């Protein structure tokens, strides 16, 4: 048997020049960034109008560079500087770029050769290995690019390809999920820590975890001192990206060894093995470089006017509300974003992406909204991303609100802010909500006609705003702990405290708050569209009325695992209603239901009712809505599947006439939020109603019935 030809026998595995003591040769222009090649490392960087680019090399741990290799101009192809450097110690290497701009730099160029720039394509970033450890600001070049081996053994892992309409999404913060001392995990606040809680997620019944930003960010960016408490307020949520291709080292237990990539992949592998998809919250609308007052980390020094939207007189457009705005539809920036997402999909097996402030991504270089934004179109059609869910938070901080009108190419889903607003208004008893409630429960066909209900990500709570427990306990936000005089955070919360602001001993208020949380959960789980819940809502997590906890790395936002015991009834309810949704396909239809009878079960797929069957009351004073679903069980040959949900937001009880079903079937009770804990039974244990034709729905409660054969 012949031994394979060694790669060192290639003609291009040998240097052609010697620069700064290193053998080099003209590099390959792709992929961008640093790539291991036989005998060396290939560096390729796009640098706009730069006249000179050097690769700056550091030995791991050193403050100052080991060498600087000026890339010969002959090695430049177009505007891409590429060099292969031989004889590097890969494991010990940190690298950066020093970029010299032309003498006649434009008003929107920001070349600065005094700064060592990070590589936007860096797969690993050093400098923030330990969360919350005060950086050494004397050290030049804070976020240091490193090499990744990318040799993780996936052992046959493949993306789960769960149809979008079958998802039950759980929005969580990696650190916040297990950092609390009560978590009991070996590595609190880390990717490894999350793995230990997978059994909990399985019991809850969710099948998709949406993680707040995990791309490398600087928790010390914009950090400040809370002058009242003396504590340092860090950027906890991480909507301020430093490195788009690198997982946050400070979220890893193994960052001391530079193994955060492996640890992250192991987390994805373990979640997939448990039947849970992974969706990432990605922040392409702005970067941590901020405006003219912010640091130069990478993009600014490479080609500022390409990567950022700039005004004619040299200022940064600010449609993100954070300082700068990424010029995402510029072809070079667009390629960066597409490459980045392809990398996470292919290398990290990510199942979906949620795009923060996605309306920014619809704008051209001057901020003008585009009808056919090239980036959004490219992502919708990209072959590598074809199985990934694409979810847009379809607004931005510049006044562009596109819920229902985000350019979708029949691929994109949206965070449905209108669902949140409608449910909250209904729950607190606003009048005139019945018509809109029906529209939301049907999957918002007013917004997503032609795109199906799967375009609607339904939610009542998310990281922005109150937790579910606080939504029913506070009329007003209480963000004093953020140190901005309670001026930050949304004011239009559509929340209601039920008679007392914050914690209370009044048993009636406690009871109705509990019921309202269950009302929200039950309605969310029985709506067409994709339900998303906020981590901790299932155990009544509170942020004490803080509706903007972005800087609260503390018990205020950490998941308190003792609540799993103290609020076990609520948790059991949440698990049961999640299981209910997954057991009844008619609740999960991809399309908008209509009044015809596709399942041939003698009833339309959806029908609306009031206190009298078949007579919905759409009038302003009505606060009762009945929704009957008729579909098929999971087993197609089985009998039709009837689900009847009644929502009553009135302060009075109402006797509700139940619609008749097929002979031989009677209504059984699955859930009544007014009943004692848990308020929903385990699947299969539904009891027949004592009165098959009428049900008394308690004040401010939701009831769910299923029809089963008479026993």
């Amino acid at each position, binding site marked *: 048997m012949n031994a394979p030809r060694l790669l060192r026998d290639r003609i291009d595995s040998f240097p052609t020049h010697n620069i700064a003591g290193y053998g080099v040769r003209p590099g390959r222009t792709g992929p961008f960034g640093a790539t291991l090649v036989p005998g060396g490392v290939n560096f390729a960087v796009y640098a706009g109008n730069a006249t000179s680019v050097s690769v700056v090399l550091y030995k791991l741990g050193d403050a100052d560079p080991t060498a600087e290799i000026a890339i010969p101009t002959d090695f430049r192809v177009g505007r891409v500087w590429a060099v292969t450097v031989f004889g590097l*110690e890969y*494991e*010990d290497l940190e690298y950066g770029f020093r970029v010299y701009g032309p003498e006649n730099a434009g008003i929107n160029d920001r070349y600065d050769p005094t700064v060592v720039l990070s590589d936007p394509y860096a797969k690993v970033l050093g400098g923030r290995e330990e969360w919350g450890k005060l950086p050494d600001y004397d050290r030049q070049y804070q976020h240091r690019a490193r090499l990744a*081996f990318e*040799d993780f*053994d996936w052992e046959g892992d493949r993306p789960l390809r769960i149809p979008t309409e079958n998802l039950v999404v759980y929005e969580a913060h990696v650190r916040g999920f297990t950092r609390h001392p009560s978590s009991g995990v*070996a*590595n609190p606040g*880390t*990717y*490894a820590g999350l793995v230990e809680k997978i059994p909990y997620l399985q019991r809850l019944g969710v099948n998709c975890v949406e993680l707040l930003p995990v791309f490398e960010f600087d928790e010390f960016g914009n950090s400040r001192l809370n002058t009242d408490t003396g504590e340092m307020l860090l950027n906890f949520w991480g909507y301020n990206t430093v490195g788009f291709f690198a997982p946050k080292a400070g979220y*890893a*237990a*193994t960052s001391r*060894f*530079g*193994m955060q990539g*492996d*640890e992250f*992949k*192991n987390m994805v*592998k*373990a979640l997939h093995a448990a039947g849970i998809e992974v969706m990432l919250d990605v922040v392409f609308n702005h970067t941590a470089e901020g405006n003219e007052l912010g640091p130069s980390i990478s993009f600014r020094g490479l080609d500022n006017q390409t990567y950022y939207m700039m005004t004619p007189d040299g200022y940064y457009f600010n449609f993100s509300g954070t300082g700068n705005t990424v010029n995402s539809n510029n072809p070079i920036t667009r390629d960066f974003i597409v490459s980045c997402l392809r990398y996470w999909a292919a290398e990290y097996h990510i199942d979906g992406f949620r795009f923060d402030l996605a309306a920014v991504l619809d704008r051209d270089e001057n901020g003008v909204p585009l009808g056919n934004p090239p980036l959004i179109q490219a992502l919708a059609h990209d072959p590598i991303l074809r199985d990934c869910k694409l979810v847009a938070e379809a607004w931005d901080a510049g006044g562009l609100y596109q819920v229902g009108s985000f350019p979708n190419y029949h691929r994109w889903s949206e965070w449905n802010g209108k669902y949140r607003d409608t449910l909250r208004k209904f729950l607190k008893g606003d009048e005139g909500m019945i018509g809109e409630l029906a529209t939301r429960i049907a999957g918002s066909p007013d917004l997503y006609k032609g795109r199906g209900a799967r375009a609607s990500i339904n939610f009542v709570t998310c990281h922005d705003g109150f937790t579910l427990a606080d939504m029913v306990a506070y009329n007003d936000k209480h963000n004093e702990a953020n140190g901005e005089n309670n001026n930050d955070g949304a004011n239009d919360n559509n929340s209601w405290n039920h008679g007392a602001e914050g914690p209370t001993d009044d048993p009636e208020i406690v009871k109705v708050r509990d019921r309202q949380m269950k009302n929200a959960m039950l309605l969310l789980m029985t709506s067409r569209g994709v339900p998303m819940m906020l981590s901790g809502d299932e155990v009544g997590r509170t942020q004490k009325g803080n509706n903007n906890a972005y800087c609260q790395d503390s018990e205020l936002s950490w998941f308190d695992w003792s609540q799993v015991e103290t609020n076990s009834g609520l948790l059991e309810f949440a698990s049961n209603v999640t299981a209910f949704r997954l057991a009844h396909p008619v609740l999960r239809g991809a399309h908008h239901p209509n009044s015809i009878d596709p399942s041939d079960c003698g009833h339309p797929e959806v029908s609306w009712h009031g206190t009298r069957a078949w007579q919905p009351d759409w009038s302003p004073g009505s606060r009762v809505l009945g929704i009957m679903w008729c579909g098929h069980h999971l087993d197609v040959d089985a009998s039709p599947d009837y689900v009847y949900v009644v929502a009553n937001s009135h302060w009075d009880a109402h006797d509700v006439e139940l619609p008749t079903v097929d002979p031989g079937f009677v209504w059984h009770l699955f859930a009544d939020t007014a009943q004692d804990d848990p308020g929903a039974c385990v699947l299969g244990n539904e009891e027949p109603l004592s009165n098959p034709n009428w049900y008394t729905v308690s004040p401010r409660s939701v009831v769910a019935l299923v029809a089963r054969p008479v026993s």
Partner: protein
Amino acid sequence: MKSRKRMVGEVAVIALSGGLDSHSAAEIRDKVTGQLADHEHVVVDFSGVTCVSSASIRAMLLIYRQAQALDRTVAVVGLSPEVRNVLSATGFLHFFVVAGSVADAVTAVEAKGVNQFERAASVA
């Protein structure tokens, strides 16, 4: 970094001592995979190791893959709590048979005769 090999029955036991940096990592990888070629069972004793690097952890993975390719079992003894935590957090721990002592490790690899690809049960 020093390594010392002795035989316990049919099992090759390689005891390491000193620090494992990127240079020594390549050395132990080559040594251990060399032993795998000659002996059916190998135990690597880390008790004398003073500190490790990411390179040495990756070397352990390469050892595992070599063992898998040759249908052999590698047991490890004397992992520090930190190294054990890193292997566990990255999902690599279950590739190895982990034992509390050399004697237990030898017993474990000899018992592996038939099922070479069983995932690790921690023996001690």
